[in-house]
């Protein structure tokens, strides 16, 4: 069996966690899902699995971990450049 490339943690999540570095242009086909990766994503980092609008909650482990500060497309890197915590942080 080939090594898993991403981890889908919870059915309600709109992100998945990359288990290896994944290059832009790769198509992930795993656990009955298919995702085209649009940016280079380092291992341990998150990719968007459902489109998010600005202000949408980012859901990991089935729980809200912050919100999108701009629209995020499926296959894009979800990190500090487009996500902010809801607490103890202020909008730029």
């Amino acid at each position, binding site marked *: 069996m080939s090594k898993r490339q991403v*981890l889908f943690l919870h059915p309600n999540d709109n992100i998945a966690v990359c288990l290896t570095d994944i290059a832009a242009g790769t198509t992930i086909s795993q656990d009955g899902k298919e995702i085209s990766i649009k940016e280079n994503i380092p291992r341990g980092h998150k990719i968007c699995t459902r489109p998010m609008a600005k202000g949408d909650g980012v859901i990991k482990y089935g729980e809200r*971990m912050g919100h999108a500060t701009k629209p995020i497309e499926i296959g894009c890197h979800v990190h500090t450049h487009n996500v902010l915590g809801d*607490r*103890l*942080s202020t909008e730029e």
Partner: protein
Amino acid sequence: MSLTGYKRSNGEWGFRNHVLIAPLHQMLSQSARAIEEAVPGVVAISHDWSGMREKDFDRIAKTLSGILVNPNVFHTVILAIGTDIESEILSLAQAHAKTPFTIVTLKDAGSLQALTELGSKAAATALNGAKALKREPAPWSAVVLGLECGGSDAYSGITANPALGVASDKFVADGATSILGETMEILGAEHLLALRAITPEVGQQIIDVVARYEKSINYEGIDIRGAQPSRGNIEGGLSTLEEKSLGAAKKAGNAQFTGVLDYADRPPVAGLYFMDTPGHDIEQLSGFAAAGVNIAVFTTGRGTPTGSAVIPTIKVATNTEMADALPDLIDLNAGTIADGTQTLEEVGALIYDLILRVANGDETRAEIGGHHEFNLSRLYGSTL
């Protein structure tokens, strides 16, 4: 696997049988280190408190008095100036346990050199006694487990932390005590922990302790971005404090919370607790030591050598790459869960077994490396 330990007169159990050299004033810290060097096998702490009744006195007194009588300590050699405030700390310690101690005061010794010599003699005698004491079969309730993480990465919440949660749940179910710390690292997950509280009051305490912390941060006007998550956390893939917290809280498994403890307070009965501690690794371990924690598991994504003066501290790596790169720091690799070669339950069972083996005397990497850190936690500056 059975459990063995050293039974103490107050009913607590130790998994180590330390002779601890403890200065009650910063001026005697160097003497404590000199005794540690002169008598191989004893362990010394040092600190910077000058015996003043400063704003943080209660916190300092709890931490110092608590570690003097940690159940892993067989005998304490106390170095003191000979003041009333030091006697207060001794009284506090004795309210918890009658751990045998020898006190050497500068007043009686006359000089630092004489104090070091007297302390070394007492330490050597105590060490002989410690070596003669045999382990006995211990009940599961003997375990007071500390749960810590440091240098978290995006794997922490997927691998090492939930696997530790599996082990913690098993101990708690068998009547042991387990303590989760780091208030900042449950911010964003406290509503989930509160749902698991034994009573609504305990649930409210969990919410309140985080609210107090959040208010103090907002009041100070600290911009937490850049510090939490830290640069290392962010490089590892964590984007927000809530994300880090959701992963960190998984160390406490799914058991019910019996109570909330103030920093360095001893748990009154067995069960799972949350302790209000700083995120700072050593301050947290020092608070645990004062609370009577006798074994700890420390999950890490980036790798850290930190240990405790009196608590054997097991390091669990969250990812295989770091575990392979830093074998002298890591006792167990939970990265196999992300590699897909082991399940969460399998690694949880391995952590459980490792806790038992270390409790029974196996040395941790931190112990082998001589890492026995201690420090005092202050909320205010040393204003006096």
